[in-house]
């Protein structure tokens, strides 16, 4: 998964060039115009909007309690009462799929925002200051980059999970671990962008005029380097949702009674041969969510890339 992220990152390192200096047609304006014409963008926006509403107000979609078990009706096929059927415990799969959105979206969004913040901040510092700080930060990033995301997360979760309890603590722990092992890809991207922007004349001019390093970073470097970071973070969001599900699937991420798609898929393992619907509904939902975020990232990237027009 790391390599997928770095591949996107690599493709983006060229970054937005700024293009012609026409005052009316800015790069952002062009990109937005391009974006509005893409059906994939609108499709992904609708998917994400529905998922976010689902995560915040699950009660809008169903009145059934996702933890109400009918053991006598275990593995029931989809019917008018339980639209998606019932799982091994006799839970209503439709209600559980709805309530499961919260954990996945929460982990995905927080981990993405976290990696973007940590990676960008350190990348800015490393790229801007250079010297031994850059060397040190780059080596640290390499150390974390050398540990595969899933492997690092499995070991770290095993260490941590007996020390925390409660829904938000567990979600927070999963997020923190994903951030710790996920920030180097954003760091590399940001550092490369800064190094590319820094020698430009307008940055040198700002420095000659006596602008403080903070002002130069905020007004000149950051706006140019932010685009690729946002794109990769959006794609990473999908990746993080999938990793969270993989961890729950292995039985070490979120735990029952938490309702999440990964937990549901893990529960379904014993039943898939006789009643595949127990696996297919949560897996389908998970795939749609990942699809939404990856499509969004893809279309934003294409809109920002002058070569693809």
């Amino acid at each position, binding site marked *: *998964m*790391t*390599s*997928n992220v*770095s*591949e996107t990152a*690599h*493709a983006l390192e060229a970054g937005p060039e700024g293009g012609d200096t026409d005052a009316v047609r800015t790069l952002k304006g062009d990109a937005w115009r391009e974006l509005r014409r893409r059906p994939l963008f609108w499709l992904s926006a609708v998917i994400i909007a529905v998922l976010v509403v689902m995560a915040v107000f699950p009660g809008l979609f169903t009145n059934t309690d996702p933890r109400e078990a009918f053991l006598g009706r275990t593995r029931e096929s989809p019917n008018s009462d339980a639209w998606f059927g019932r799982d091994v415990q006799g839970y209503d799969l439709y209600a559980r799929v709805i309530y499961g959105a919260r954990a996945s979206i929460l982990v995905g969004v927080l981990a993405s925002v976290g990696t973007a913040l940590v990676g960008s901040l350190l990348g800015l510092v490393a790229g801007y200051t250079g010297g031994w700080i850059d060397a040190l930060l780059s*080596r*640290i990033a*390499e*150390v*974390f980059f*050398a*540990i*595969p995301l*899933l*492997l*690092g997360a*499995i*070991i*770290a979760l*095993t*260490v941590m999970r*007996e*020390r925390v309890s409660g829904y938000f603590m567990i979600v927070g722990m999963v997020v923190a671990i994903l951030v710790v092992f996920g920030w180097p890809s954003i760091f590399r991207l940001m550092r490369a962008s800064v190094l590319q922007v820094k020698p430009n004349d307008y940055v040198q001019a700002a420095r000659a005029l006596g602008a403080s390093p903070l002002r130069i970073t905020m007004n000149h470097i950051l706006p140019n380097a932010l685009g690729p970071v946002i794109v990769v973070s959006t794609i990473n969001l*999908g990746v993080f949702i*999938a990793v969270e*599900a*993989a961890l729950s*699937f*292995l039985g070490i991420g979120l735990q029952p009674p938490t309702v999440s798609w990964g937990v549901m*898929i893990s529960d379904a*393992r014993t039943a*898939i*041969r006789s009643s*595949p619907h127990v*696996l297919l509904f949560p*897996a389908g939902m*998970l*795939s*749609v969510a*990942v*699809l939404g975020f*990856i*499509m969004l990232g*893809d279309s934003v990237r294409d809109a920002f890339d002058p*070569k*693809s027009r």
Partner: protein
Amino acid sequence: MGKYTIRRLLQMIPVIIGATFLLYAMVFAMPGDPTAGMCGQRDCSPVFKAAFNERYNLNDPLPVQYAKYLAGAVQGDLGETRSGVQVIDELGERYGTTLKLGVIALVFEALIGIGAGVLAGLRKGGFMDSLVLVSTLVVISVPIFVIGYVAQIYLGVRLGWFPVTVSFDAGWGELILPGMVLASTSVAYLARLMRSNMAENLRSDYVRTARAKGLSSGRVVGVHTLRNSMIPVVTFLGYDFGALLGGAIITEGIFNIRGVGGYIFDGIHEQDNMAVVGAVTVLVVIYLLANLVVDLLYGVLDPRISHD
């Protein structure tokens, strides 16, 4: 080139030490008594525990423990598992299986990914292009454990085309389906990478020159465009090989393969710290070496890049 290689090898040392120390510290911070269950139904005697702690330097501070471990590891001593087997012997066997799986995945990835990417890139916006774009999007978004279970049930159990699980000494034939599952996500990314490279290079000046010279379109595409489009693809394949080995943990679980991923996962559950540390240390080293080879290869493939 020689100088560059040596410099890169030297730069790798702190990274290897940092990453393996981090993993070592995490593994030995895992909760539970490492001697639990080693003496049958009762607790181990204090004498046994003392000897155990002495054997694995558990009384020393963590950095000292790690330094002693590393000193042993360099000489080929990775310690013993809980059942008293040399970790290095078990790793040899396990890595054999996982490497086989990785090679199958890589071959599958290269064939299908490059093929689909070329077909799509030749006519951007055409039917093949849309088909490849949509199908890769679907493959990327379906998690690998779902692909694995669905492939196992439908291709293995229902249709009987492939063996459902893999036997003790995994043969090449048995590993084909797991290899395909393992490679599925990477195939999709590779096809997309190949497609965008092809489409971009087909519009470049040197391709127009080649066409203007009157070369046949087979030669323009097959020699000029394809070779240049392959450079990023080869590097992607190289980086991915390490990632595939690390990511095999789920695929190995589904198909019951006795590889490294399963070894690490079982080791974590059984608190077999030496086994886990040994396996992940070797994994990190392989991963970094694969990346180094790719970086060196890059200069060979693309004469514009010089390492001197």
